[in-house]
């Protein structure tokens, strides 16, 4: 869908054209579902959230600023919705695991890191992602799936901008550990002594 076509479709949706709404939905629903599938713990949650996000999109379409990319706005609505769902349920747990955030990180061995990348498929990465704490998982999804800026991630997750880098780094470490298992995680961490 070209930019001009999108503008036209959006105008028609605002005017209440259900055909245009269907077109917009078909265009963006798969990406939104994939986003939700990565951000939320189960497929059922992702399906519910996708529907709810599109209902919100329809309600809030009047607030969309056409000078900004539509996809970015869409991801903003989706990320706020998903994070809100997770936050309601998990906020105390995240606070309780706050000590993990302050633990010193060990440097990875570049060789081990490259082997890890070579040995795991996309699907395995997403399975590993599902094992991460909500905030870590959300940070990775916002950055590497939605391509959000550090400012946008900070705003969505309610953290200081300076903390986003730390969050991403910790999330990467947690993902490596989830993929490698405890034994391999030790192997990855063993490089610390060599640096």
């Amino acid at each position, binding site marked *: 869908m070209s930019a001009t076509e999108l503008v036209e479709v959006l105008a028609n949706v605002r005017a209440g054209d*259900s055909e245009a*709404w*269907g077109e*917009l*939905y*078909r265009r963006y*629903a*798969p990406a939104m*579902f*994939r986003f939700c*599938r*990565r951000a939320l*713990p*189960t497929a059922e*949650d992702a*399906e*519910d959230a*996708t*529907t709810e996000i*599109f*209902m919100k999109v329809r309600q809030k379409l009047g607030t969309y600023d056409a000078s900004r990319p539509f996809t970015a706005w869409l991801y903003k609505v989706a990320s706020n919705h998903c994070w809100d*769902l*997770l936050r*309601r*349920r*998990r*906020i*105390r747990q995240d*606070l309780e695991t*706050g000590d993990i*955030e*302050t633990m010193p*990180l060990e*440097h*990875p061995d*570049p*060789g081990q*890191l*490259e082997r890890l*990348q070579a040995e795991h*498929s*996309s*699907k395995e*990465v*997403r399975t590993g*992602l599902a094992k991460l704490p909500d905030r870590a998982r959300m940070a*990775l*999804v916002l950055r*590497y*799936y939605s391509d959000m800026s*550090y400012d946008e991630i900070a705003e969505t997750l309610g953290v200081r901008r*300076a*903390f986003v*880098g*730390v969050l*991403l*780094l910790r999330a*990467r470490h947690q*993902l490596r550990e989830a993929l490698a298992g405890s034994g391999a995680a030790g192997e990855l961490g063993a490089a610390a002594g060599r*640096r």
Partner: protein
Amino acid sequence: MNHFDEMTVLLFLEGQLDAGHAQDVRTHAASCVECRKLLHALEGEGVWLRESLTAEDESIPARLVAAPERGSAPWGWLTAFGLGVGGAYTVWSGVIVPWQAQAAEAGFTQGNLLTMLFFSGSLWKGWDAMRSGMEFVAMATLALILIWLLRRQFRRATAFSVVMAAALFAFALPPSAAAAETEHGDPNYTLAAGQEIKTDLIVAADRIVIDGTVDGDLITWSRSVTVNGEVKGDVISWGQSVNVNGTVGGNVRTFCQMLTVAGSVQRNVMAWSGDVNLDQKSKVGGTVTLGAGDGDLNGTIGGDVLAFMGSLGIDGRIGGNVRVRSGHLAIGSAADITGSTKYLGNHRETVASGAKLGSPVQYTLYKHGPDRASPRYYWHQILLWGASFVFGLAILLLAPGFFYDVTNACKKVAPTSGLGALFFLATPVAAILLCITIVGIPVAIATVFVYVVAIYAAQVFVGTWIGEKILGAAVGIGPTLGRLALGLAIIRAVRVIPYAGALFGSIVVIWGLGALLLTVYKYMRPQYAPAAA
């Protein structure tokens, strides 16, 4: 330059370093093999993550193929609303109205129950002030909820003005009037004959004797209170023994071990007491309401008698009706009851010859426990389930984070059960202790109110936890409501079982109460933010 750390490499790769630092990294990487390897590895990891996450190797589920047109039918809300209304009606028609009718029969003829109990001073005039306080708290709570709902619309200046306006409003509130004389015994207190207090008198002493006149209410905390003189208002008394030998122009309200009335009470007597004795010489102009172990009503009572007793003896004159729930009822030969007598008890009444009754005693055998053979009992269970579901729904919508946190806390069975049992037993004791001090009474009332609400709320959290155990963890309002409904239904079903149901109900209360307290404790303890890089 030393080797750079992983954080610096990540920020460099993500374009988050300023130009100077980025150039340092480039320069160092050009000459350092080890750092160059790390840089390439992390760069590769970024690409790998991006590709893995954006891979389009999943098909969209069938139910998402069609675009949602509008929200699903609010059948859940309609059901909840219907059940809530039904539950409220049941409570109103099954509990409040009969009680109100009984009270009305016993002479409390004010417009409605709330007015009667709280706002017309039948218990205590201070309720008027308390009502203002409650209204203010209710309004403040509503305002806070409104502000919370609109918080995203507020800019800082607006929020500041709201806070300032609220503060000014609080300062502008008129101070409550305090027109009472307060006395502390040393250790005893005596108002001598001929002396007169021209206002309410509040006394805390070991022994209190009122030989003079109190032109207002007499409120006392004492081992022994004796009124030989005159109290023109009410006598409200907490103590071991209360003796009214003189004249009371208003009501007598007591919470004591022994109440003896040998004088005259122009309005009503209400007593929560071990023993109650209305002497032959006593005169009560209005009604007598008793919750007591043993009682003898030998004097003259102008209005009705409503009594919940271990045993009751009537050997005096009663101008109205008598409604008694008691272990035993004995009507003596000097008794003269103008109205009807209804008696709910375990044993038949004994009526001495010579007793004058307006109509024969209507005796009903008291049945212990609910009537499980009646369909109405099960219909009530369904409505009670609906009421608890609506209550849970309200908590979930008003404070979803808190709701989920308490439900999660239910997982910690041992600490929650211990904490719950402790507070379940200790809170009433604390409330009674608070009542000993005048200042503590409002706090005690608030404590009991919160205690009752918390006990009721316990089933909501435990119910949701049970629902999650069966259906799996929920994210979002809809799935949580399903789990709540299922859990509450299970709790309600188990509670129907005789004895075991009562035990299960107690476990649910203690467990849920503990989870609630544990969560509140976690909210109140200081939290430490993680250190920034």
